[in-house]
């Protein structure tokens, strides 16, 4: 293309700066707009939350009492596996990508994401990937039944035939994540408004920048792992088959080299969200911005050298055990710094407790509890007793549900006015919060005890001494499940009947996005905004 035509194209585009979305279905299918794509991601992840939640409720129904009442052990295993996969890859990750799509261009003062067409593709892969994965549940021989960690050889030599579909689905999810993270990195590094230096970026932007690099580093590793599985299953290789000279433990090293950074992929953006919500409702600048950035970066670095803490019982030399124990314990330091900074932000603020703030405070408390149990799990000798029990289940649900998921709720309520131009109903939002808060604790707190008392995870039936805790957990799960359906009502009510929102919907909120009208215009910033002291971190 000659320069003249290029100019024409840009000119032509300039004329149409204020064009709105296309009409009907094609708006969503062909959209390259960051807000539309963000919306798609968010609704998709909500749908997946409902599906994954349904599976969780099937599990909790079976576990309500000792004995097998509703489903058989084989189906139970399919439920635990798909619940985990859907929640991790279908609910939490796409929700954060959805938030990134909505917020990053507005927060850095850009009109859209850097690579809009790829953005469309990276979303539209997902429904196909999950459609395929969920379809395996209806295939002969059943769906994946080997746990979301899919340890070989249970997932290779001993897997149901549908495992091939599962592998393909994971490849697609990986491709989607990689494209998404390239786009995020390109947007953040190239599209910031003049004057927004790296150390003036909002925390959500910082956390996503680092998360995107983590994704780029580990998704190919996951792809490698599933490709080796594919070869073991179909082409008679023996990467993970001991009988052919392979090593099942190799699989675990590869998986957790992906898997541990993966858990930070699900929590770093949450840190970013909380670092916006708490200052807004404490009406006080985030405490220790620089140390927050360094803390996130150190957590990301450490996440690459702790993976074998998931494998203490696998059998490792003493030196290996010690290394992974010490490195894991170290993560507590930067994580502690973050919590201390949030609390110092609240300190001597002028706090109000709207729904996003409630979720954020619950996040700080409950995520910290999850962090404490994580520290306990890092202690290798004690881990021998905790490993693969409900104590672990309690631990990671505390960091993922009142951790990651609550931060997503905080974000949705916080930016809802910016997205829709309307305020949600505060009483309904608070009701959603309290139901979720009570439900989540009744569900997962007792699991600490059943785990300590010796209940292994992933079992469809249990010894009688665990009965009380399990019944309690099941009751909590239904309360929590109900609360999330209620959330849908809160959203629809807000979209339809909410009061009109102002540009700066929260008096304490700062950042470029709040300088845009509510709802934000289709192309966020058509001209680079001026980055003022007021709207950026200094």
């Amino acid at each position, binding site marked *: 293309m000659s320069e003249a035509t290029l100019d024409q194209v840009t000119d032509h585009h300039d004329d149409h700066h204020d064009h709105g979305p296309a009409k009907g279905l094609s708006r969503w299918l062909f959209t390259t707009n960051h807000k539309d794509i963000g919306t798609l991601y968010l609704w998709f992840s909500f749908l997946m939350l409902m599906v994954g939640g349904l599976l969780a409720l099937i599990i909790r129904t079976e576990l309500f009492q000792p004995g097998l009442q509703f489903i058989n*052990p084989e189906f139970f295993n399919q439920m635990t596996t798909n619940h985990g996969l859907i929640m991790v890859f279908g609910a939490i990750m796409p929700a954060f990508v959805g938030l990134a799509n909505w917020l990053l261009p507005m927060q850095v003062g850009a009109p859209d994401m850097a690579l809009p067409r790829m953005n469309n593709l990276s979303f539209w892969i997902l429904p196909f990937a999950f459609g395929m994965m969920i379809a395996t549940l209806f295939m002969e021989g059943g769906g994946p039944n080997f746990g979301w960690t899919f340890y070989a050889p249970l997932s290779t030599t*001993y897997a149901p035939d549908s495992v091939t579909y599962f592998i393909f689905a994971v490849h697609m999810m990986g491709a989607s994540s990689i494209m998404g993270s390239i786009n995020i990195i390109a947007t953040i590094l190239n599209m910031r408004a003049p004057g927004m230096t790296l150390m003036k970026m909002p925390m959500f932007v910082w956390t996503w920048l680092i998360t995107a690099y983590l994704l780029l580093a580990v998704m190919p590793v996951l792809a490698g792992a599933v490709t080796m599985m594919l070869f073991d299953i179909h082409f008679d290789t023996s990467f993970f088959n001991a009988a052919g000279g392979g090593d099942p433990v190799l699989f675990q090293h590869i998986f957790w080299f992906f898997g541990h950074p993966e858990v930070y992929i699900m929590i770093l953006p949450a840190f970013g969200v909380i670092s916006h919500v708490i200052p807004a409702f404490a009406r006080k600048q985030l405490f220790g911005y620089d140390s927050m950035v360094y803390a996130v970066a150190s957590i990301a670095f450490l996440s690459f050298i702790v993976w074998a803490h998931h494998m203490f019982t696998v059998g490792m030399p003493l030196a290996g055990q010690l290394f992974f124990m010490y490195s894991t314990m170290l993560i507590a330091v930067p994580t502690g710094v973050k919590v201390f900074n949030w609390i110092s932000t609240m300190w001597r*603020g002028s706090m109000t407790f709207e729904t996003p703030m409630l979720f954020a405070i619950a996040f700080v408390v409950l995520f910290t509890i999850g962090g404490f149990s994580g520290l306990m799990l890092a202690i290798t000798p004690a881990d021998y007793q905790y490993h693969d029990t409900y104590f672990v289940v309690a631990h990671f649900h505390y960091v993922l549900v009142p951790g990651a998921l609550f931060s997503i709720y905080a974000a949705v309520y916080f930016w809802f006015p910016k997205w829709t131009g309307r305020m949600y109903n505060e009483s309904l939002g608070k009701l959603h919060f309290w139901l979720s808060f009570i439900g989540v604790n009744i569900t997962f707190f007792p699991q600490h005890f059943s785990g300590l008392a010796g209940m292994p995870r992933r079992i469809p039936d249990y010894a009688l*001494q665990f009965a009380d805790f399990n019944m309690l957990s099941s009751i909590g799960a239904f309360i929590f499940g109900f609360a999330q359906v209620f959330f849908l009502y809160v959203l629809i009510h807000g979209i339809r009947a909410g009061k009109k929102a102002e540009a700066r919907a929260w008096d304490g909120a700062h950042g470029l996005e709040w300088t845009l009208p509510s709802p934000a215009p289709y192309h966020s910033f058509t001209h680079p905004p001026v980055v003022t002291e007021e709207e950026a971190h200094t």
Partner: protein
Amino acid sequence: MKNLARRIGSVAALLLCAAPAFADELNMPRGVTDISREIYDLHMLIFIICCVIGAVVFSVMFVSIIKHRRAAGHEPADFHENTQLEIIWTIVPIIILVAMAVPATQVLIAMYDTGGEDMTVEVRGYQWKWQYKYLDDDYNRTFSFFSNMSTTQDEINDKAEKGENYLLEVDNPLRIPANRKVRFLVTAEDVIHAWWIPDFGIKRDAVPGMLNELWTIVPEPGIYRGQCAELCGKDHGFMPVVVEVMEEDAFDAWYAEEVEREAIRVENLSKTFTGEELMAEGESVYNTFCASCHQANGRGVPPVFPSLVGTPVATGPRDEHIRMVLDGVPGTSMQAFGKQLDAAQVAAVVHYERHSWGNNAGDTTQPRDVIAIQDQAAGN
């Protein structure tokens, strides 16, 4: 129903009880070995440290929530950094972590103190049972057996009252002597399992192709229960670990008995049995290993578990029948029994099936016939 109401009542009571981690059944068991007690102390130490830190941090937060509210008329302050504070709350946690790491390292080193054992047992995980093999330098004193869960399907399916040790009971427990250092070599035959006894403070993955080493010294005789702790397929929830720790004398007597029984078993492999002997032994093997699916009357539960009455396999060529029992049918619940039964048992059960419930093949099956087929399959 009343039971359920009572359970919900006790659940409510549980909710109310404070400081739950200190109550016995809510906490990690202290266990019976030195190692398990050291682990317990470590666990409590770290738990209490976490509680104290949590209490301090959260009270600061709640004080702030109560005092620094806009509703209480509090105006926002204007500070947003303090390098000194940042340094303090980086250094102090590091010191606390070191204080945790020191005892943890000591316990870990103690756990790795292998060697000097009095005896060795190989623990092998199968889908879904454990095999225990007592290894002895004198090969004639080596023997092994399987340990299957003994809870009945009726209990699991709520058709019978659940026993006290529901899901935590087996037909043949592992037996070890008190006060001797026992080394375990843990491995697996098919997928990964994990062998765990909470009261001993030992858990180790059983990985195919890998031998993991563990050890314990149990001072008190008794029965100790655990479960497989690594997802291993359908019946992962149904492969308990039960260890009976015996007084040393009793253990030695039991061991001698087993060695003798093993000698008889080996002898049987080269013996020729009469039809009656085969029928008697066959019936007992059948009832233990086969009747759960094919039923005592041989008629099975079609279409899931086929009948053995008058079928081509049960009445056709004998060697096909032997192969069926040895190798099973991959991908179905008909397992390869060649891994669990010896040649004499296979011969007996095949003979029994061919001459029961109206089947009358009119041949005999001797252990050497089975051995011939095993050798053929092994390629020699």
